[in-house]
């Protein structure tokens, strides 16, 4: 589904990501972990098209996508969420999710202005699908609330629904459990597995080790922009290199 | 083109060039401290000229100029305190519109006070036909006043920012506001000071150029645009770059008279502005990294 080949990213003299290669099989849940500053979010930005690679390739569904703009990547079937939630100011939860349907709908300027009959059907379909997603994420009651006024966990849900609305084949989740308590984190874990069961491949960046160990099929470990290890959760937990880079942090967490 | 004409254009270009540079530096000082582009910068220049002309009726010329500069500085401070100071992290769009509105208001007030007539200060030395001969060229001594005064201002500012405590505090402010606050620097006063400084240098430039370029209630607008062009050209926030860019624009404009009808002369600087914005927004001498540093 997704393959990274020797991805490099330099900012001036600083190497943020160096020679990272790994692949994500379809239908898998793959986690990218590493201490702060390891380059995880940078990697996401490189995959999703927000940043240009210094060198290397990103291959999505057998297609090289490095250099494409984010909206093109989204149209190809890759959606992402953001670390600090980026919701649309001034739009309700429902409307935010409806924007997610943008790549799966067509009405353009003229059709919009003249409110042609063709758009009536499309609009209804967009609205219905969006409501379905809100129900899936159990926030349907907030459909008409201003998205940015919702509680943190609910905002995350809106962002997730919005990403799902694009009918992605691959979903990039940037720290989906950040700021959530134990129960909410468990919910997120359940949700992610449900998403995988719907046929969507998931790649997530996460700090919460319990979530990562719980649901991931495979884990990639980054440190200072380099890939240190790539293996199943159990092996990662016992990998001496991995334990070493987490030394100084809570050792307890790394060896759950 | 004869060598006489060539030199004539050159001096005209340098004269206007340093004026544009001073306006640009005014933009830079406020931008460096606040991140705001003060669209009313041109009006400070106009006010300097206008106020000094009025004061000339009661006091001698040097006093009139000094007072005009002081009054304009006070106006600058007033503007900052009344309109800008209490805003709570406003968006860029909002600030742009506010300063545009201020520019219009000041212009209209000026129009109601001084009317639409064109005025000027008398030549500092001699009158409009006095000339100094350099080589084959005859140049008004006022030109040297302009170049000299503006040059001294640039030097003075450079020293001010490098050596004096207040100047260094202002640089600290622009470089990292939070750290500056933590060091005990009163950033709010620094902002007011930056407005006063920009107003002051603008006003002085306005006085010294008045005999040559005349002063009218709306002479601020085109100056602001050219000053902004120069500021961008030299790299926003980079005042040494502004000096070089100012000279470049001034000289380009001066020589353009030979190729382009006079009526289109203004269009030249705007076209340059547009080209720069499209192609290289951080200017000739700026780099996007340096632009972030926002140093003098």
């Amino acid at each position, binding site marked *: 589904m997704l393959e990274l080949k020797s991805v490099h990213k330099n900012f001036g003299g600083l190497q943020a990501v160096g020679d990272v290669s790994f692949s994500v099989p379809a239908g898998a849940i793959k986690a990218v972990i590493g201490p702060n500053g390891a380059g995880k979010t940078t990697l996401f930005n490189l995959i999703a098209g927000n940043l240009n690679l210094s060198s290397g390739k990103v291959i999505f569904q057998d297609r090289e996508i490095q250099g494409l703009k984010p909206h093109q990547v989204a149209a190809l079937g890759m959606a992402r969420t953001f670390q600090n939630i980026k919701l649309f100011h001034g739009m309700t939860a429902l409307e935010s999710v409806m924007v997610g349907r943008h790549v799966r709908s067509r009405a353009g*300027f003229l059709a919009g202005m003249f409110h042609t009959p063709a758009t009536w059907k499309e609009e209804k379909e967009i609205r219905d699908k969006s409501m379905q997603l809100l129900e899936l994420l159990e926030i349907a009651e907030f459909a008409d609330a201003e998205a940015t006024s919702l509680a943190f966990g609910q905002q995350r849900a809106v962002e997730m629904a919005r990403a799902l609305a694009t009918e992605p084949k691959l979903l990039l989740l940037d720290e989906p459990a950040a700021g959530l308590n134990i129960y909410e984190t468990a919910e997120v874990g359940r949700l992610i597995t449900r998403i995988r069961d719907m046929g969507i491949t998931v790649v997530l960046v996460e700090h919460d080790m319990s979530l990562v160990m719980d649901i991931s099929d495979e884990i990639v470990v980054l440190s200072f922009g380099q890939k240190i290890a790539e293996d199943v959760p159990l092996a990662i937990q016992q990998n001496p290199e991995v334990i070493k880079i987490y030394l100084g942090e809570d050792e307890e967490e790394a060896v759950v | 083109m004869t060598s006489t004409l060539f030199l004539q254009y050159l001096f005209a270009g340098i004269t206007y060039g340093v004026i544009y540079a001073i306006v640009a530096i005014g933009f830079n000082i406020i931008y460096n401290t606040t991140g705001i582009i003060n669209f009313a910068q041109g009006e400070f220049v106009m006010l300097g000229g206008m106020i000094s002309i009025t004061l000339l009726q009661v006091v001698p010329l040097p006093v009139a100029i000094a007072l005009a500069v002081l009054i304009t500085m006070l106006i600058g401070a007033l503007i900052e305190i009344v309109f800008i100071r209490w805003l709570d992290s406003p968006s860029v769009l909002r600030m742009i519109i506010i300063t545009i509105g201020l520019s219009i208001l000041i212009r209209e007030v000026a129009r109601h006070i001084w009317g639409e007539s064109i005025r000027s200060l008398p030549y500092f030395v001699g009158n409009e036909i006095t000339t100094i001969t350099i080589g084959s060229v005859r140049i008004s001594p006022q030109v040297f006043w302009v170049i000299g005064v503006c040059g001294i201002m640039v030097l003075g500012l450079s020293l001010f920012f490098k050596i004096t405590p207040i100047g260094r505090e202002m640089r600290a402010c622009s470089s990292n506001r939070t750290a500056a606050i933590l060091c005990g620097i009163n950033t709010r006063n620094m902002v007011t000071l930056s407005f006063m400084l920009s107003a002051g240098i603008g006003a002085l430039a306005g006085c010294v150029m008045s005999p040559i370029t005349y002063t009218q209630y709306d002479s601020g607008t085109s100056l602001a645009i050219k000053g902004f062009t120069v500021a961008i050209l030299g790299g926003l926030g980079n005042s040494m770059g502004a000096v070089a860019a100012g000279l470049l624009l001034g000289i380009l404009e001066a020589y353009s008279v030979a190729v382009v009808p006079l009526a289109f002369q203004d269009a030249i600087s705007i076209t340059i502005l547009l080209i720069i914005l499209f192609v290289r927004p951080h200017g000739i001498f700026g780099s996007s990294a340096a632009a972030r540093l926002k140093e003098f």
Partner: protein
Amino acid sequence: MNMKIKESKLLKIGLLVILVICTQLLTQVTDTQFYLTQLTMSAYYALLVIGLTVVMGYAGQISLGHAGFFAIGGYLSAALTTHNLIALQTHPLVEGLGSLGMLVSGQDLYGEQLLVFAPWAACIIAVLVAAVIAFVLGIPVLKLKGHYLAMATLGFGIIIFRIGLASEYFGEADGISEVPGLTLLPALGPFGSLSVSGDFGLRVENYYVAWGLLCVGLWLLLNLIDSRVGRALRAIHGSEEAAEAIGVNTARFKLNVFVLSAVYAAIAGVFLTHYNGGIGPSEASVMKSVRYVALVAVGGMANIWGTLIMGVGLTFLSLRGVFGSYDDAVFGAILILVMLFAPDGILSLNVKALFTAKRTTDGH
């Protein structure tokens, strides 16, 4: 929910139409028909302003040069319908245009032979040119942000102003006058022809043409905002990065909206020029552009109805001379006051909130 929105939109437009009709009848009854002229002009300016609202309020792009597009529309239409092509009548291009029916011949005041563009053809050409210029300009300009964008659009407006002021073809400082009326409907049976012109006898008709055009333009924009495109625009305004990540081609949308607003401005320019019978360089001035921005700001950046009301209201007052010689100052003051106290427009002003500590939402 969807039907309710649609109904309330039509309801509001319906109310507007009724208001328009009532106003006209009122002027008839009180014999104050002279108000119709300024109301007509206000409607055309409002057309420009609602187009600008979408660009500024929804796509979040400031444009300090929209008077330029108004002027392009007006000037081109004026020039094409007044400049005599008779000397070039054997030129293949002119012959081609003539065979398409786009030229008319006649005689001017002095009995000279005249060959000019038909108003309808000039109108279409003028608007098309404005659209093309907006497109070409928009591509680099809309990549800019903040101050740079403001300056670039300001610069554009000034260039148009300078061209109008300096070139002989556009009449220099005097502008172009004696622009013929724009015939909308030819004479049919007992009905005389309907044309946009300063003809006093057609004053009432012109009033309805202007307001009709405005209502149609309004309806189109309101539809747009509720549509998929409108949502995409609001998303861009809300968070450009997120919109891009979700699949919205932000660059193209910003450009399209910009061109759309330029078309609105150009149409307003064309119609107003034919109504007034002429146009001058002041229509392209910076002050006009600033005025339009002020109207959008005071009406509420993303509030089309608010901008419509403020646009018509303030323009009407200005045209009636209520502000006297302080006209420009008034709009400057409006700009400042609105931006200081009510950045979301006057209608959103919550006086109580003003005096309590508030978290400003304008950090985007």
